[in-house]
């Protein structure tokens, strides 16, 4: 295990069914600084996370995945984390991949590593593949940066990236916003394949046409008002 100060950020909204097991799994791999950003959950997420030994930061109201992620990144920055990992708290990401992301940052000397579901051998539903492609094309049009999985929540950031990245989006469009900030901030990034473990609940998240349209509209507004 590396001696660097590593922070694991888990943005969570009503995830009391999964968060306990996920924290236990991450702890079993030797990571101690596990930060749950409880984004105004109305269930027992806060209690379960605290009882599982994580540090819990609570938003009194639900702001969205983007705001929760930025709260986590700011917390890690103030704690002078060397490497910060974000992953979804519904358990779809395999914590065993955390080590791969850290290794990539250390060996390739990149600032951001994106865990790509599409670079690995994953059984991803066709609808999700389609919406992801639309999001990739849209992000590419706005940022001129091609990423195979723009909507991945599994990422690693070094200190430089923590300093530079400032997520303004509150919702799921934050994933694209991070990519939009890579070039202007002269950050280096890479993608590595990750495993994905879809449950019925995680498959329901963020894949509707309406969500995609709202995300597209928000990205457009951001692009013309920046």
């Amino acid at each position, binding site marked *: 295990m590396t001696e660097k100060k590593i922070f694991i950020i888990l943005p969570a909204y009503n995830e009391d069914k999964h968060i306990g097991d996920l924290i236990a799994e991450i702890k079993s791999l030797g990571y101690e600084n596990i930060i749950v950003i409880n984004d105004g959950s109305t269930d027992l997420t806060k209690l379960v996370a605290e009882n599982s030994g994580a540090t819990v930061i609570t*938003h009194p109201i639900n702001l969205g995945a983007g705001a929760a992620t930025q*709260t986590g990144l*700011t917390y890690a920055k103030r704690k002078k984390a060397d490497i910060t990992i974000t992953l979804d708290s519904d358990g779809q990401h395999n914590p065993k991949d955390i080590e791969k992301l850290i290794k990539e940052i250390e060996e390739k000397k990149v600032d951001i590593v994106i865990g790509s579901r599409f670079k690995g051998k994953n059984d991803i539903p066709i609808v999700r593949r389609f919406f992801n492609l639309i999001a990739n094309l849209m992000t590419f049009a706005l940022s001129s940066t091609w990423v195979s999985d723009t909507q991945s929540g599994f990422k690693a950031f070094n200190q430089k990236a923590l300093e530079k990245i400032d997520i303004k989006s509150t919702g799921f469009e934050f994933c694209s916003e991070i990519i939009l900030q890579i070039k202007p901030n002269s950050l280096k990034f890479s993608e590595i394949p990750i495993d994905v473990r879809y449950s019925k609940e995680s498959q329901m998240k963020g894949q509707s046409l309406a969500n995609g349209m709202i995300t597209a509209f928000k990205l457009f507004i951001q692009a013309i*008002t920046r």
Partner: protein
Amino acid sequence: MKIELYQAIIVTIAVTFLLKALSHFLRGERTIKELIAVFVFWGFIEYIAIFPDTLGKISYFLGFKDYLAAILFSSIAIIFALLFKILLDQERHKQEITKLVRELALKDGENKDDIRT
């Protein structure tokens, strides 16, 4: 050139909005892109008010048969611009609330850390 009352009212409204936008820009509350957008929009309205015949030329160019269609078209454009402004304001307020809530949550978390250590 004779100025009708409606023209004077529109020009006054447009100039008010332009000065307000300029003042916001000088205070750093508006970006240059927003300022340009405001100038283009209200500048166009002002121009049309002062030279209403232009509307006829635009209507002809766009293929509208009469002024009524052009007025309807212009009205929709104004409503769209106002809606856009409301959306921008709403987004700005949302971001301010987000910043506030995030900072409160972080302070609370840091206080807990202090108690633990």
